[in-house]
């Protein structure tokens, strides 16, 4: 018998963890002499109080959906992909190359090409760590961390020495042409009569992200490949018995993971900046870890967690603008969420399990009499 019903495991535990993280965050805000309630109010109004705020919240959420899914797919194969940052960076490079290389007739074609290229570049950046893990047992956590730094150096080199337009002082690529501008939510919703902030960067990538959620759900729970990924993730020895090739699954899972992380670039590079800048990912690869942990590696959970983090991000930016609370508060909250939903999971789980076992015993004892 399980110690705890499934719903408690899937909902109660993360909820309590989140609550603990929230309480500590509030204490931190009080600690720096600010009013947590006012801060939350400001965050809510800034992030959700206008279509402008929503536009940014959803823009960030789109990034986090991609990186969260990336982390989750790898997690299902029992691989901890900390390399989302690097893979998303490379995805950006892919998008920039394809957007600048060809004269695109229409944004939709460019978007398709960008989806392909960003996923391809992200996947390729995950390939070497995956291969080394599968074939040579090199710990993927360490190799992906290393690849994040290597990606940063590579982007740095490319932007400074290769892609920087002549005469520009910025280490950034040229601006993409108007033709590859993908519709923002404003442009998408205007025809159907919905007024959405023109300034907000949320764009059609959001729909791609939602589609990705659905596809990942199908992949993991409905397809043979997903079945094999999960089986391999749960028990490598059993996977071997079943004839599931560990090298193949490791590589494929990481390619999908890297591809998803890379896909983020259609949002931040193509949808927002419309050029490639240094550090375009802004840590979204790492936030994917928190998002996946909180979303319990399920696409639906990830969607919710991504929106929550989108809210935190936009709300945090607002805080930084209108109060003296630095933006780093969000980093702290992110850390607390990772800590409680990830590392200190058992701190919540064990007492809860005991509670359930005791509750069940007493109710069983009662009924038998």
């Amino acid at each position: 018998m399980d110690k705890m019903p499934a719903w408690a495991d899937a909902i109660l535990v993360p909820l309590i963890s989140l609550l603990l993280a929230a309480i500590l965050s509030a204490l931190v805000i009080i600690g720096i002499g600010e009013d947590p309630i006012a801060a939350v109010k400001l965050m809510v109004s800034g992030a959700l109080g206008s279509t402008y705020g929503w536009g940014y919240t959803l823009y960030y959420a789109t990034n986090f959906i991609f990186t969260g899914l990336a982390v989750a797919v790898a997690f299902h194969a029992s691989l901890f992909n900390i390399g989302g940052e690097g893979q998303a960076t490379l995805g950006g490079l892919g998008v920039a190359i394809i957007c600048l290389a060809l004269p695109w007739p229409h944004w939709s074609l460019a978007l398709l090409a960008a989806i392909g290229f960003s996923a391809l570049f992200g996947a390729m950046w995950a390939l070497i760590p995956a291969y080394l893990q599968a074939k040579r047992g090199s710990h993927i956590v360490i190799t992906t961390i290393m690849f994040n730094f290597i990606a940063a150096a590579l982007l740095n080199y490319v932007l400074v020495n290769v892609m920087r337009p002549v005469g520009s002082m910025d280490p950034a690529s040229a601006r993409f042409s108007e033709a590859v501008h993908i519709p923002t939510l404003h442009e998408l919703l205007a025809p159907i009569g919905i007024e959405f902030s023109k300034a907000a960067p949320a764009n059609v990538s959001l729909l791609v992200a939602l589609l990705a959620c659905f596809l990942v759900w199908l992949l993991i729970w409905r397809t043979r490949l997903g079945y094999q990924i999960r089986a391999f993730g749960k028990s490598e020895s059993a996977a071997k018995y079943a004839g599931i090739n560990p090298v193949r699954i490791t590589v494929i899972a990481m390619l999908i993971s890297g591809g998803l992380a890379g896909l983020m670039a259609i949002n931040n590079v193509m949808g927002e900046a419309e050029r490639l800048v240094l550090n375009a990912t802004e840590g979204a690869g790492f936030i994917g870890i928190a998002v996946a942990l909180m979303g319990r590696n399920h696409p639906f959970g990830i969607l919710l967690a991504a929106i929550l983090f989108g809210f935190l991000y936009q709300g945090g930016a607002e805080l930084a603008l209108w109060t003296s609370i630095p933006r780093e508060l969000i980093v702290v909250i992110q850390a607390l969420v990772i800590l409680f939903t990830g590392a200190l999971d058992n701190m919540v789980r064990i007492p809860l399990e005991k509670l359930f076992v005791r509750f069940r015993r007493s109710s069983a004892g009662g009924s038998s009499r």
Partner: protein
Amino acid sequence: EPAIIFDLGGKFDKSFNEAAFAGATRWAEETGESFREIELQSEAQREQALRRFAESGANPVITMGFAMADPLSSVAPDYPDTKFLAVDVTWLDTPNIRQVGFAEHEGSYLVGMLAALASETGTVGFVGGMDIPLIRHFGCGYAQGALAADPDVKIVANMTGTTPAAWNDPVKGSELTKAQISQGADVVFAAAGGTGVGVLQTAADEGILSIGVDSNQNHLHSGKVLTSMLKRVDVAVYDALKAGENLETGVFVLGLADDGVGYALDEHNEALITPEMKAAVDEARQQIIDGEISVASYYENDSCPAYNF
């Protein structure tokens, strides 16, 4: 309510951004009004910050540094009623931006002279921030000034990096200073934003002289900073805030004549600047203003007659 966007080094970089902060603070104190501000954390934030301020009705919106040029070019046209002040940008053709540049080469020329005059080893150093034409522009004026004061002077120059991180890397500034000291430099000019803090610190630790930049940095290590090359960003910001919504747009380049650049002389470096040095530099200043001396501009020539970067 006006707003300022500080660049990556942050408003306490003791240099470029801090100058803007000082100007804004002076305005706020004098008028009793307030301004909004944000310190950028990453490249990707530039456009959002700009848009957010414009969106919320801030006017004017002040941006610091050349890297804001690109976001400005895409955001400013969306808010035609908002006035922008772009410091260190002079090449955009959007009507609602006041673009302010500085004749850094002229100011650098003066501190270059002082460096050469103060040097005992006959070698002076230059630590630049990010390796871009703007910083070479500084270095070029500095080299010309040093050579003018002492034709035999040896100049050693290093750039901190190729990305904006170069504005905020005191460790590297410190290491480069040590390297220049080992090459004989005994006066080092840091035109490197927050990185300069490391340069000035090391220079003070190692007992040589340094030259600050943008803000008056003489007080950082009193008696050990020869002078500072002032770039009156504070004045530009102060004036813009004072003008408010009536800000006059267009391109402005401030030089010695407008007191847009200069060198700092105060109680911290009185003892270091002899009357002879002061006389020589002041004369050169007047000559530049009068057009008798023409300081070559790296911007215009894309090369420097005095130093090969």
